[in-house]
């Protein structure tokens, strides 16, 4: 699961879509999402054209279809949940099909944009949109050290597991809590070293 979720961070499929400027892709993506959310139930034309545009983009962007389907499948339990809950409440406004359609289109948009745009470009767009510097730095550092920490957590967990000879849940929880706390302490210490490294090269 880790590989699937985090590995894709660094997978970049080169394609005509990937070469488009980030601002353009983000802009179009936002327009599609806004429009879809605002669209009333009878605006079938909008839904169909948005879906078509997305499918064409997906084809051009060379994102593997299996990868896409796996991500879309994530939505299904939520939609089922809403459907179930709505089934018991006949007065509920808006059918779940509409919710499903809107969500799928928006999800597809995000997946396409995020898989054809490096995160650092997205950050640059946010910076240009006057998002405060502290948040940008936090996002940048988070993105850079995400995989590092995930790997560290995995290594620690494996090392602990190799010395765990009991399957009692209580012991597992203690082990995992220790791993998580160690991860925080190491992250803290690494943050201090990063601060030193930034200062060493002139950051103020």
């Amino acid at each position, binding site marked *: 699961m880790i590989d699937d979720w985090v590995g894709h961070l660094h997978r970049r499929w080169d394609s005509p879509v990937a070469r488009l400027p980030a601002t353009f892709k983000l802009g179009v993506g936002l327009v599609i999402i806004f429009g879809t*959310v605002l669209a009333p139930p009878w605006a079938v034309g909008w839904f169909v054209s948005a879906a078509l545009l997305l499918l064409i983009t997906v084809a051009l962007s060379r994102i593997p279809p299996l990868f896409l389907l796996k991500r879309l499948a994530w939505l299904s339990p939520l939609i089922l949940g809403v459907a179930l809950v*709505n089934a018991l*409440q006949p007065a509920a406004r808006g059918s779940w099909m509409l919710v499903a359609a809107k969500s799928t289109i928006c999800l597809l948009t995000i997946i396409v944009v995020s898989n054809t745009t490096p995160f650092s470009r997205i950050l640059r767009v946010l910076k240009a949109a006057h998002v405060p510097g502290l948040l940008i730095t936090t996002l940048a550092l*988070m993105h850079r050290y995400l995989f590092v920490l995930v790997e560290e957590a995995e290594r620690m967990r494996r090392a602990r597991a190799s010395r765990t000879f009991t399957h009692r849940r209580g012991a597992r929880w203690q082990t995992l809590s220790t791993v998580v706390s160690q*991860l925080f302490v190491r992250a803290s210490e690494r943050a201090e070293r990063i601060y030193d490294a930034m200062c060493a090269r002139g950051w103020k």
Partner: protein
Amino acid sequence: MHIPDGFIDAKTAAATALLSAAGVGLALRQARRTLPPRRVPLLGLAAAFLFATQMVNFPVAGGTSGHLVGGVLVAALLGPSAAIVVLTAVLIVQCFLFADGGVLALGANVFNMAIIGAAGGYAIYRLVCHWLPGTRGQVAAVAFAGWCSTLLASICCAGELAWSGTVAWPAAFTAMASVHMVIGIGEGLISALVFLAIRRMRPDLTGEINAPAPTRQWGELVCYGLLAALGITIFVAPFACPWPDGLESVAARLGFEHQAGHRVVRAPAPGYQVAGVRWAAGATAVAGAAGTLVVFGLALLLARSLVRETEEDNHPTRP
């Protein structure tokens, strides 16, 4: 609890976005003012830490597993403003990179998990610490606040879904609240275990170094509290209020009713077929209230069992 796009409508997205923008803006300003420069990279690393931690599976029963969301944990370690920034960063990355939570729904997710969850949870944590001193008090506070914040965030989420008309309030409330009352136990328990482990390893990380002076902090908390209260008033109160007819007349007088096809406040669905669901919602509310007392007791017991008597003397008690 990440709401995807399409589940909430435009007005809900806009309202939550405004509330969140205010809260995050305030948090950023506070963090810039009170955080020593040395700790700036810690925000990014804490965000990466939260993300990595959310993927750790804590086995529950029969193949299911719990996960730590970590809002209250981060707030207890870094203070409410830093926690809001950290959680916002996590939610943004989850939204943009993993499509976990919608783009327009980002405002709602940030409001639920960062402002209500982290800052609200922190307020509860500080209150409990105020009454119960020492390490035991802190551990109990983290556990209890973890549970409360999960439940409160889920109730707000239900309110937002109902306001959008995606799911009717009684059903949304029952489903979200009952599920999260259980999930919250995991959150509280894991947060407490991790907090205590960090306390033992590096007590300086759990001390007041990361938090600003007490007086300033209460001011900050009051602001977040106001934002939270505003959100709850908008999204939850209309539904939870026992006099919906009264609210309806107010709405009519203020002209809300005139929006074409849009009713800001939903009237309770008439008829007998929904009585069952409304009863369930009422029962859930009662269970929640009783649950709060039970969980508080459990949190105290947990702290008792985890923290040895000797540890109390070694660590300084909170002011």
